[in-house]
């Protein structure tokens, strides 16, 4: 038997050190992912409505968000989301734990998600719908309420659409105005008479309500359904309340389209550049200088690219395009201002180095023997490149694409100079000709996180949205990477020889 230290090897400390480093790295990565997923999951999971009775007899109804140590005095204080911003100005209320004498979960407490002013927490007195009055204690009340809300929501959708159409036109027809008025009137017939925990009365028009839920009555499956509904809405809906509520669809769409346009731009340019450098230019002082500057470009801070994009793409190129093709609408710029086209061009420039370097490596993977084989059959240089070298280079090209997409999807700084906005009035792609409106400003997940998380007036209430947006961005990046990875592995298998 060998002594133990020989079996393990003398390099035990080094091995331990590297294993520890791996552990730390893994821990950090899992920590980040877990934090984001937890934040997003917690934020969307329906929370019970707690009715607190304080020592002075005040009643507070809301969701318990945090228990933290009290900076003044001792003990804990609770941060309760009480909503009703239209009444009290703020969504949150902080109470000292010591003041709380009673905690209940009343089954008749409701939370209303509203188009404006955030959530309303309280009790339903009655529902007035077209002269009929429904008592919340009558059986089947919940079903009646949901049906009424759905009806009103559909009326609201129609009237909103019509109103937008009317607003676009200089003068609307009598007929349209009359129809709009009747649609709006039909919505007004429905009102929810509510009261807060403290007994304050509040009448809320049904048209203001997105969802009404008696949260404490929901079982696990009911809560799960609400959770799913919230996620679906988050992915597919427009934002509300200066982005702190509602969905992120425009940002998700903007990010995807941005990355797609960037890829479409950078891959051909990068591949052709690399082809010239490696296949045609030969190894001269000039090509070495070009190669060096391309790799140096990769280390330039992205905000510099943003500034360049603004100066060159937006002002110079965009300005020229406006002068040539959109002179009639000047001085209002069309392409001469930030937009998704210029933002993707800027990102394409930013990611050009990785595509060039990776493609060059890919081209180097084509064996000399195979190139000569094609030439010996009379193939020209271009034919050799096109039919024989390219299959070998594809894995490298896809690797470049992976790196480019991964970098571009996460960049925010250059976009802030070249066309991202916190709220875009329209998507860059819609049903009005010419369908692609690449001059339009756009929303972006990364910027959304920054804006909602750090720039909004209501940071605390927006926390779930920030975490959920981060999670969506992470998932999007992972999916894009996965797609490119699959492409690369397929291409790699194709050029792997099984003989010899």
């Amino acid at each position, binding site marked *: 038997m060998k002594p133990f230290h020989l079996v393990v090897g003398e390099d035990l400390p080094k091995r331990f050190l590297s294993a520890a480093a791996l552990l730390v790295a893994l821990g950090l990565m899992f920590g980040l992912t877990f934090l984001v997923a937890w934040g997003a999951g917690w934020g969307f999971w329906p929370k019970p409505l707690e009715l607190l009775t304080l020592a002075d007899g005040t009643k507070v109804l809301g969701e318990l968000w945090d228990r933290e140590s009290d900076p003044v005095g001792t003990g804990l204080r609770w941060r309760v989301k009480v909503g009703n911003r239209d009444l009290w100005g703020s969504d949150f209320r902080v109470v000292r734990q010591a003041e709380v004498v009673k905690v209940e979960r009343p089954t008749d407490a409701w939370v209303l998600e509203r188009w404006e002013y955030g959530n309303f927490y309280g009790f339903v007195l009655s529902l007035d719908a077209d002269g009929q009055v429904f008592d919340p204690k009558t059986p089947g009340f919940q079903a009646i309420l949901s049906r009424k809300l759905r009806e009103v929501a559909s009326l609201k959708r129609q009237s909103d659409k019509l109103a937008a159409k009317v607003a676009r036109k200089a003068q609307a027809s009598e007929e349209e105005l009359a129809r709009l008025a009747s649609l709006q009137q039909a919505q007004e017939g429905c009102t929810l008479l509510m009261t807060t925990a403290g007994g304050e009365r509040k009448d809320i028009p049904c048209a203001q309500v997105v969802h009404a839920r008696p949260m404490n009555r929901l079982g696990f499956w009911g809560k799960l359904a609400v959770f799913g509904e919230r996620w679906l809405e988050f992915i597919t809906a427009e934002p509300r309340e200066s982005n702190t509520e509602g969905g992120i669809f425009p940002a998700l769409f903007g990010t995807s389209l941005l990355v797609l346009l960037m890829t479409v731009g950078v891959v051909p340019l990068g591949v052709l550049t690399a082809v010239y450098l490696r296949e045609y230019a030969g190894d001269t002082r000039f090509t070495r200088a070009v190669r060096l500057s391309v790799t140096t470009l990769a280390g330039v801070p992205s905000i510099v690219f943003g500034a360049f994009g603004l100066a060159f793409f937006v002002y110079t190129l965009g300005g020229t395009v406006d002068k040539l093709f959109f002179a009639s609408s000047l001085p209002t710029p069309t392409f001469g201002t930030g937009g998704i086209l210029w933002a993707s061009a800027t990102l394409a420039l930013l990611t050009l180095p990785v595509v060039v370097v990776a493609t060059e490596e890919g081209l180097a993977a084509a*064996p000399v*023997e*195979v190139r*000569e*084989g*094609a*030439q*010996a*059959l*009379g*193939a*020209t240089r271009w*034919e050799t490149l096109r*039919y*024989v070298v390219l*299959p*070998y280079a594809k894995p490298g090209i896809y690797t470049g694409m992976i790196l480019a997409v991964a970098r571009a999807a996460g960049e925010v700084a250059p976009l802030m100079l070249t066309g991202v906005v916190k709220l875009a009035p329209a998507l860059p792609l819609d049903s009005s000709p010419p369908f692609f409106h690449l001059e339009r400003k756009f929303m972006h997940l990364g910027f959304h996180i920054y804006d909602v998380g750090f720039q909004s007036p209501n940071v605390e209430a927006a926390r779930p949205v920030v975490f959920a947006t981060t999670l969506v961005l992470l998932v999007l990046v992972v999916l894009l990477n996965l797609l490119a990875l699959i492409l690369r592995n397929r291409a790699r298998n*194709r*050029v*792997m*020889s*099984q*003989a*010899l």
Partner: protein
Amino acid sequence: MSAALECRNLKAGFGDHLVLQGVTLAVPSGGVTAVMGPSGCGKSTLLRCFNRMNDHLPGFFREGEVRALGRDVYDPTWPVDSLRFSVGMVFQKPNPFPMSVADNVLFGPRLLGIRQKQELSEILERSLRAAHLWDEVKDSLSSSALKLSGGQQQRLCIARALACKPQVLLLDEPSSALDPIATARLEETVLDLATSVTVLWVTHDLQQAARVSQHVAFLYLGELVEEGPTAEVFANPKNQLTERYLTGRFG
């Protein structure tokens, strides 16, 4: 008998290294001519002069005439691609393209502009049969050529060259990466071919040269030491270097 390949006082090399020091050689039409010689003596360089494969290598220079099929290979009216269609080549290491068996074989014909399905499938079968590969791959024509064994890959490379209907085939140590059984199959294949195509076969394997060729040339340090009918050269070499090489007392 006219010469299929011919060079006169050919001097060639790379940079300041003169590899071929004035080689004069005539390869007779038809049959197999073997070029033998120790490693590094310039066999590949000589072979590649005939289809101008050296031209793009850095530092390559050449002096002296090179003729193929009775024509100067540097004749400006003879484009290099059409020279290479007539003078095919198979390399030391099997080099199939990363595509299907059929696409490999049809690579040359497609470059020639042949698009008709019927014609292409005729070329495919004829070339694969001539390379003794048809029976092995006829059911997997559309699977990747990289899945074939080394010997099959090398015969595929022969089929690929044959698809352009060359009159001359240059083989640069084609069996050096193959096992003895695959080598035997390859030799058999080439011997069958040699009835219709002139073959110039570079090898450092004496037995192989003796087995396959009717004519040999012995190259040593960039100089052509001796050439003649195989049987004659092997039986009584005129040059002392040749004798020493043949009897293995070398180096």
